[in-house]
């Protein structure tokens, strides 16, 4: 790599990191889902092991998780305050994707400039700009693409070891590693169909990966498999909210999410690679895209994760498009345009990437400070074994800030009555009848109700319809309201 390229790459990395960190610190708090992960890391820091028996979530439940991400973050928790580390490290990891994407693009095209553009696109991909999301994906994605880079270089022995190590870490980080295995399967199929020779080293690594993944997942999720059978892979998501995980996004929305230019470039490159060039390395990338599509179609993977992966692959494929475009322009009478090509391209990318990326960052779904204050207040002013009712997505705020039992949160695995719980949760927001409300509250042993502005917006209500002074006392009244339950239903005795 030339020095100039190195400086430019470092600049892209720095720009990406700075943009992400600015957004991360401007926007208060974390996304709702992040608080579950924060609790896991806290528990490891205190107890040395992840939280497998959670007394607060769902009023008490067992968790089965892959814990490498939590241990990784717990390491930083030793030196930095957790909430600071949780903002810096994930953004640093996602920013490191620019380096990895540069390396992959360089491997495929052997063109520094083209690879720099790929890195730039990957750095400012709108879908990746959830800067306040403390999620496993922030480690998973860089590891995944590092693993792919190692696979592309397995002729060099040191990369075999890098592949093995990253693959092991992937298996311990997320079950979404299945993307790789499915991708490999489709890759072998494509090679077979095209009559290309399958490299022995690649085949051996794929066989090893397949068995290691299956064995490791079986070991960690044995009880889940036994209890829920094959349906565990659909994560026990209640049917009423499954559309949130698999939304009907329009094509326009999807294109904006991955950015227009990479999308169009990607289509051109895929067509050329599949039907004309038959480039084996591109086959591999296309295979991964097909595998994520299949996983999303069968509802084994959330749509947004599939789109994220797709977007990153498009960023890599853009390097090929750039090369082909340059070659084409040089051949035409418009060769003089090359002088303005880079400026024009950067301008277009800035508009189509930067604005949607910043927009995504600013529109992250995070609790506001006043809502967090209310949950903190609960911790200081309610008995330790209290149960608290709130929105589904606020379930982790109850367990993290309030340290109290919740009714429900979005960790649905191994919960037997998840559909009934979700139905009961919703009924409390809608019912006008105090008896019905008290019946549900008694059932889940709930002593406090929380109504945040977020809940009011989502449920389109000002307050609970069943409230009465006899049975509900408002004990906190800011923008968020907290009510204490004073009554319960008594069972009448029958002779």
């Amino acid at each position: 790599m030339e020095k100039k390229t190195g400086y430019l790459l470092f600049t892209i990395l720095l720009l990406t990191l700075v943009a992400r960190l600015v957004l991360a610190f401007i926007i208060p708090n974390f996304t709702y889902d992040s608080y579950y992960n924060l609790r896991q890391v806290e528990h490891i820091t205190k107890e040395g092991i992840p939280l497998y028996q959670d007394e607060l979530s769902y009023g008490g439940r067992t968790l089965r998780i892959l814990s490498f991400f939590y241990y990784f973050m717990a390491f930083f928790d030793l030196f930095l305050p957790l909430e600071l580390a949780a903002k810096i490290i994930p953004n640093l990891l996602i920013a490191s994707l620019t380096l990895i994407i540069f390396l992959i693009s360089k491997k495929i095209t052997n063109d520094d400039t083209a690879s720099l553009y790929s890195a730039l696109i990957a750095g400012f991909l709108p879908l990746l700009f959830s800067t306040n999301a403390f999620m496993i994906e922030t480690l998973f994605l860089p590891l995944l693409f590092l693993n792919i880079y190692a696979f592309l270089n397995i002729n060099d022995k040191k990369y075999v070891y890098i592949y093995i190590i990253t693959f092991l870490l992937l298996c311990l980080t997320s079950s979404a590693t299945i993307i790789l295995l499915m991708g490999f399967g489709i890759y072998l199929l494509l090679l077979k169909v095209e009559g290309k020779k399958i490299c022995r080293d690649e085949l051996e690594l794929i066989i090893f990966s397949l068995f290691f993944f299956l064995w490791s997942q079986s070991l960690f999720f044995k009880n889940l498999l036994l209890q829920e059978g094959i349906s565990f892979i659909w994560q026990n998501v209640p049917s009423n909210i499954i559309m949130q995980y698999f939304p009907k996004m329009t094509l326009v929305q999807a294109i904006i999410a991955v950015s227009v230019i990479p999308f169009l470039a990607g289509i051109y490159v895929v067509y050329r690679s599949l039907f004309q060039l038959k480039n084996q390395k591109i086959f591999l990338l296309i295979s991964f895209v097909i595998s994520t599509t299949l996983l999303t179609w069968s509802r084994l993977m959330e749509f947004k994760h599939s789109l994220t992966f797709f977007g990153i692959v498009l960023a890599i494929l853009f390097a090929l498009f750039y090369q082909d475009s340059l070659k084409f322009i040089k051949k035409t009478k418009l060769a003089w345009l090359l002088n303005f090509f880079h400026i024009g391209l950067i301008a277009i990318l800035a508009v189509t990437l930067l604005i949607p990326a910043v927009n995504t960052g600013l529109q992250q779904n995070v609790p506001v400070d006043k809502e967090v204050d209310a949950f903190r207040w609960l911790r200081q002013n309610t008995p330790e074994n209290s149960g608290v009712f709130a929105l589904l997505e606020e379930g982790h705020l109850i367990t993290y800030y309030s340290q109290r039992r919740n009714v429900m949160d979005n960790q649905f695995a191994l919960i037997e009555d998840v559909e009934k719980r979700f139905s009961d949760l919703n009924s409390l927001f809608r019912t006008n009848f105090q008896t019905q409300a008290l019946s549900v509250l008694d059932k889940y042993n709930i002593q406090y109700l929380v109504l945040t502005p977020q809940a009011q917006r989502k449920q389109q209500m000002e307050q609970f319809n069943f409230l009465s002074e006899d049975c509900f006392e408002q004990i906190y009244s800011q923008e968020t309201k907290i009510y204490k339950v004073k009554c319960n239903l008594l069972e009448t005795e029958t002779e």
Partner: protein
Amino acid sequence: MKLENYFNKILEHKKLLLIAVALAVLLTPPIINYLNNKPMLIGGESYYHLTAEPREAINNPLIFLVKYVPDNLLFILPIIFAFGTILCLLSLIKSAKPEFTFFYLLILIISPAFIYTFTTISAYSFFLLLFLLGLVVLNRNSSWKYFCVLFFVPAAFFDLLSTFLMLISLAIIFYLRKKDKMVWLTGAIGLFFLTAKQLLLKTPLVYGPFHAQQFFPDFIADFGGLNGISFFVVILALIGILVTWKQEGLYWSYLFLPVVIIATIYNTQAVFFLTLLTTFFATAGLIKLLERQWTLSSLKKFTILLIFLSLLFSTISFINRLPLSSPTSAEQKSLVWIYNNVDYETVIFTLPEDSYYISYFTKKEPFYKPHTHDEHKEEATTKILTAAYISELFPLLEENEIKFIFITPKMRAEAESLLFLLKNERFKLAYSTKEVEIWMFK
């Protein structure tokens, strides 16, 4: 030590090792049952055989055999069948490569379907033993080979699937030995016999089911079934099919594949035959991986270790679940209470898979046995289990003359609404121990 040297050492003592493994996996379930004060036999099919009518023996010779074995020694019978089967297989496939014989038998012995079939009173265990004994005798060069008929004839009196598979196997064997007349004779006899069994004896296509079927758990044991194949064996089998599909001598194995797959989809009881075939392909896949020269030999060793760990994982996971299987000691105690305290004829309602324990321990009639395929009773069972109101439940109980409801922990999880309705005054809790309850319907 090189991997090959390791395996050569193992192959020298393969018989001993296989017998030791078989002893370990087959004796563990009865020992666990004994230590947990459970009945030594598990599985609905075991108790079906113990309570079947003698006239049903025409379609299942095992029913005839179990009548002559004392109850407290019945658990030994399937183990005897298992060792007989293993010794027959060792004798029959000694012409194959030693590593193939060893790994085939090893993977088969540790498979959940084999363990379940040969620790319960299972028709297929007896069928397989008879069939293999017939083949062993047939392989004799002397006039002793004609005595194979003594084994093939009773083996032909099981379900239509097993008879069909046996006849196809024999036809293939005769074809490979270039005995064309025998092929035609086998085909003709087979066709006649199958038709006669179906029309005159009303032989079922596949036995059972003796439990509520769920395809994936019953097919892949790792998903919670009490039978089935290890998921890792399926993966190895897929590799095996990919590497062997062009090999001429193995074309015959592909003939059985669609038959047993379709049979398993129709009735998951047939998963035992699918296991035999899948293990064959899995062994081919494993041998290919072992024989292949890998670029990184350490990676090869690690992958082979992973494969064996995975296979062991499935076996241990399966054996771990056996103590939780029915009938438990609490269930047995409850059913014996009915036998001792209810001296009139009555119908007892429970989950279909538990009905066979009711027949055996109470000597009373359960409401519905799955193997009878009685659609009316099956529908009524579903309606009772899911009844949400007494106006739905009471007519069903009265119409079917159900006087007792036997509730196990599994039923508790599956019939929540029914449990709620038991609070009505027409139900009385007659007996309860641990999580098992007997409710009387007045």
